[in-house]
């Protein structure tokens, strides 16, 4: 059982590797799935369905942001809730104390979170595998405890409340549709960014650094810069999601916004959907978020928490039996249907599902 762990194949790298140039086939499937979700929500058009849709797309965008570090760069972070919280708190504090509209405030959060992400990666530059994971977890906790105790700035455990007065400038709306539009735009932007990263030289730098650091530096890539940039972009885009979260729920407190559970959720959505792909986090969110919301709705009468038990079990099964996630399973099915379209490039076969 141990024989399979040849040094080259086991590392901090992602569970699946369907990165590198994308073919058209998968994007069409994705678009159809996404469009049908929106159509369903529009047709059903009750508050609950639209609420689930908004949450789903917000989480999809956030998972895509996490995936830039966790999937593409192999920097598995369990401290992303800190960046999420920084985004949410910065824009909210600017709005409440200085009247800065969140439209601009979110860029302040982006900047701070980006710097924090870069700093974290520089500090932990030498760490690999579980050491890196645990360091990010600790960093996230430091931010959470700071937010919990810095009462004058964050309101401490009581949290901050954004007054529910509808105003376009303050990004507070009465109807759900503006939120839905913003969140979908966020997700699409993150998706576009992910696809762009996959296709640029920088993306190849990331994959090379993730898969073989020594090899990458031998051909002239600076692994440290590549990693730092990936984490900074990931943190900055996560912070935007944090602002959107704050504006939609209009309430923030450290225990819910900066908890490790949030970071785990980012990671698990990506893992279930397929790490290191642009479509994975979207599929993961499309399955996990509505599922846990619906289970919560169905089971809440009987007992609270049961939906998360089922959720945990689903996560275990998917991870163990579909380690390349849903998007990996779909692309395999697609390549079986049309052998040419979904075939991974030869250079990538080494790392593909044969091993994982």
């Amino acid at each position, binding site marked *: 059982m*141990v024989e399979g762990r040849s040094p080259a194949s086991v590392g901090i790298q992602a569970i699946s590797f369907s990165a590198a140039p994308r073919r058209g086939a998968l994007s069409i499937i994705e678009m159809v799935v996404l469009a049908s979700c929106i159509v369903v929500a529009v047709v059903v058009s009750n508050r609950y369905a639209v609420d689930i849709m908004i949450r789903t797309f917000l989480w999809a965008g956030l998972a895509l942001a996490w995936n830039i570090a966790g999937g593409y760069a192999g920097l598995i972070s369990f401290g992303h809730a800190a960046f999420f919280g920084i985004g949410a708190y910065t824009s909210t504090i600017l709005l409440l104390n200085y009247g800065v509209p969140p439209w601009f405030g979110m860029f302040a959060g982006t900047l701070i979170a980006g710097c924090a992400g870069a700093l974290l990666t520089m500090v932990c530059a*030498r760490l690999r595998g579980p050491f890196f994971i645990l360091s990010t977890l600790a960093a996230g906790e*430091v931010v959470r*405890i700071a937010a919990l105790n810095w009462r004058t700035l964050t309101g401490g455990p009581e949290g901050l409340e954004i007054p529910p007065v509808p105003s376009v400038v303050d990004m507070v709306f009465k109807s759900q549709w503006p939120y839905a539009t913003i969140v979908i735009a966020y997700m699409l932007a993150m998706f576009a960014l992910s696809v762009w990263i996959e296709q640029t030289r920088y993306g190849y730098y990331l994959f090379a650094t993730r898969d073989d650091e020594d090899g990458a530096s031998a051909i002239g890539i600076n692994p440290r810069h590549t990693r730092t940039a990936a984490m900074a972009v990931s943190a900055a885009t996560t912070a935007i999601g944090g602002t959107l979260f704050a504006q939609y729920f209009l309430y923030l407190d450290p225990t819910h916004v900066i908890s490790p559970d949030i970071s785990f959720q980012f990671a698990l959505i990506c893992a279930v959907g397929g790490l290191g792909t642009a479509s994975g986090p979207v599929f993961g969110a499309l399955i996990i978020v509505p599922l846990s919301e619906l289970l919560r709705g169905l089971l809440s009468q009987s007992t609270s928490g049961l939906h998360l*038990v089922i959720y945990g079990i689903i*996560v275990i099964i998917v991870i*163990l039996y579909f380690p390349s996630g849903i998007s990996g399973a779909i692309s395999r099915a697609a390549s079986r249907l049309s052998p040419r379209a979904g075939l991974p490039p030869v250079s990538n076969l080494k790392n593909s599902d044969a091993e994982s």
Partner: protein
Amino acid sequence: MSTIVQLLVSGIMLGGIYAVMSIGLTLIFGVLKIVNFAHGEFLMLAMYVAWAIVSSTGITTYTAMAVVTPLLFGFGLLVYLLIVRPGIEKPHLVVVFATMGLSIAMQNLALVAMTADLRDVPPLFGGAPIKFGPLYLRVELLLGFLISIAITLALTLFMKHTYIGKAIRATVQDRDAAMLMGINVPRLFLLTFAGGSALVGIAGCIMLPLYSTFPTVGLNFVLIAYVVVVLGGMGSMEGAFLGGICIGIVQSLSGYYVAPAYGQMFYFLVFLLVMVFRPNGLLGQRGAAMVGINE
């Protein structure tokens, strides 16, 4: 002056208790090269089982240990066979995420079964502290510390003098070489995982009288355990003991001199500093953190 001594002593004792909970984690990490993210939930399970035994039969948690420890051993066996073994040949993130899923499931199962209420056991001797000269000590803390020292000593001897112990140390150092020397590594994995879980069972029993148990109790303590394990060097038992005592002292001093709320922040900062300046921990394997050990 006596305040400082009092704080140091209770810090050291607290640290001993942290050490027991961390030794299981560090053993599993050293041998299997995986981080069990459900470790805290194992502790939660142990504390609930101990609580159930104590509150239904009226015996002390220290007696209940005789039941809880084998039970956790069996649970560890089960988890290893169902979740860890299918994932261990795959990239290590599979195990990370699978144990994380297990942690979510267990936490919420506890919430469903036991509700979010705090459960605790009645204190020994009516909760009166023991007095040593100017020092006051809680009986449970002292007992827990003594048990943790006994456990660490017993384990150290076990590691030095038995075949399994030597095999475990060999596997920690170099898995491939150990296998070539005829050590049944897969069996050792099973044994270590179950044994590490049994240690969590002991930890749960000595922690129950000091803290109440609730569904998310594991998260609090598992974070401490990670800090302790990293501080001591992953895979090093003596390191875990030392790390536990460091964290105990940091917590008790910062809790008194700064503010209890910031106590946690201090040990996470200590953790990050160790990670930056001495990433292999105090007594860890050289270069371990740089290669993530399992590469």
